[in-house]
């Protein structure tokens, strides 16, 4: 019994070690696209500049107070934009990574190696999971320096705590979508639309209170809104770990369902492709 447990532990740790290889590979790939790296940052800064001027037309009273103090629109939206990076990775990058593996023909090579499909799925987003929190922090620092926004930097810890639940939730959804891409080859349009609808009925760019009354309960239940509420309370107010615990606990069961759905859907898609003999088709 103990031997089986030891062998399982050794197998699991060997799979976890493989994740660093994915990170290294993706870092090298990213460095090979230097212009894309620069343009990613430029577009994000450009987005903030636009919202900075839009914010000049928005009365701060329309935005909820956090920790008892009124916040500006740029502070409100900057947290929303920071969170979209997580959505981009979880939905966009995972899907495009699977598609790229199909196009390069590396998906078969990867699946023919003794690597668990769950490791491969995690590996596809491993680099971004590390990069996004760093990118998010640098982004908030830049917004603070360039546009005079005020953030509670001690709130980064509680934000990371929320992301522990929100990250896997989005990753699970991304893997479900990736399974769709694996099966139907095209599917990014539908996924893009779903992502857009998801983002609109949240509070990324505007408070949920401005939405039509019938849409508000839906938006309040949206996991993005839940995560944003927690993040804003921490970064714009004074909320600590204990204060964001309700949001965290609200996200955890959804995350568990999404992760299980993702793993099951991806395995089913692989099984189907093997059955059809079309795994290498792109």
């Amino acid at each position, binding site marked *: 019994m103990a031997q089986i447990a030891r062998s399982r532990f050794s*197998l699991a740790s*060997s799979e976890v*070690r*493989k994740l*660093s*290889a994915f990170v*290294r*590979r993706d870092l*090298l*790939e990213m460095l*090979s*696209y230097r212009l894309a790296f620069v343009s990613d940052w430029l577009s994000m800064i450009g987005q903030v500049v636009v919202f900075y001027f839009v914010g000049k037309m928005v009365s701060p009273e329309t935005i909820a107070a956090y920790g008892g103090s009124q916040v500006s629109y740029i502070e409100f939206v900057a947290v929303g934009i920071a969170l979209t990076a997580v959505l981009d990775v979880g939905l966009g990058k995972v899907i495009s990574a699977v598609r790229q593996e199909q*196009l*390069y*023909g*590396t998906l*078969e*090579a*990867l*699946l*023919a*190696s*003794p*690597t*668990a499909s769950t490791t491969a799925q995690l590996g596809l987003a491993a680099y971004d999971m590390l990069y996004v929190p760093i990118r998010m922090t640098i982004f908030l620092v830049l917004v603070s320096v360039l546009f005079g926004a005020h953030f509670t930097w001690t709130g980064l810890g509680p934000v990371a705590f929320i992301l522990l639940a929100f990250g896997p939730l989005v990753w699970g959804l991304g893997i479900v979508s990736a399974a769709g891409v694996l099966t139907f080859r095209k599917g990014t349009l539908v996924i893009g639309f779903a992502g857009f609808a998801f983002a609109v009925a949240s509070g990324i760019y505007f408070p949920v209170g401005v939405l039509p009354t019938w849409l508000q309960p839906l938006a309040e239940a949206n996991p993005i809104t839940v995560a944003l509420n927690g993040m804003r309370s921490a970064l714009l107010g004074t909320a600590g770990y204990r204060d964001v615990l309700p949001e965290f606990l609200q996200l955890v069961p959804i995350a568990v369902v999404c992760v299980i759905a993702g793993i099951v859907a991806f395995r089913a898609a692989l099984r189907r492709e*093997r*059955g059809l*003999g079309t*795994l*290498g088709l792109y």
Partner: protein
Amino acid sequence: MREELHVGMAMGTGIAAASDRDVGSREIAIDVRGVSRRFDKKEALRGVSLLLRRGTVHALLGPNGAGKTTLLRILAGLVDPDAGTVVVEGDPSMERTSRRYRSTIRMTPSGDRSFYLRISGIENLVFFARMYGLRPKQAKSRAQECFAAVGLEHAGDLRVGRYSHGMQKRLSVARALLVPAPILLIDEATHDLDPQGAARIRGLIRETVEEGAAVLWATQRLDEIRGFADHVTLLNRGEVRFEGTVRAFMAVSPPRRYLVHLRDAAKSENDRERGILARSQEALDGLGRIVPTDEADDGHLLMALEEDVILSQALGALMATEIEVLACLEERSEIEEAFLNLTDPEV
């Protein structure tokens, strides 16, 4: 003849036939029985059976569309068969998608698409070595060894996207050799390689075979199987048309044909009829036939030997009638003859 299955064992050449399966099971790396696979209306494989022995190179021959790649992909666990069984290392419980199964088999695919194009060949190898379970330092050193072994040391930090077809093939073989595995499935590995490169790759594969690996080598380069492969399976339209040793395979050929150059053969048609051609035909009576070639009248004749007749017999018969043979060339290799004989003509 074309519809028969030729089995080397029946000719006394020692290939493992169905009855051998259980007797020599310890030596058998892969036991394929009755594997079939259909893609829509096309039957890619029909009841294919094959035994791959440890420490041997088993050539898988066949024209385009014969089912070679489908069979390799089934063995690699990338495609499911519709019917039939694949038993690896004598363990029927090993699932084709299991981690253990995938640790046992390495595959070199036929196409170019199997690497990350934006990163270097070495980095690709390091990545896959990690996927095979090596730790970072081991992966790096093993990647460098294999990179050099396939003759890519000059490629250094070049991105794979800039590799030629041949370089990608070499890299693909290097990947298969990263972590020794008992079974190698190699699909058209020498297809885009120059003769030296192809010989180098075959040498590397032969080394792994000496160490006990079993290699299934799919190819259309018929010339390379002589002196390299131990066994041959020939597929045609998804069916096994031949299974046996290379020697037995070469024996499945029609009467051998030779291009012979005889003194005084390059004379007018009338002279020939009266002279050298008629005398040659007479001398070869019962041993074979001799006819003018379709080429310009340059003194060469085409000599086709009957079955069981060896070249020296025919030449002896010609020389006995004082016909001078100036040169004698094999018109086509026995391997190519056998291949053409066992496969359907291209439609």
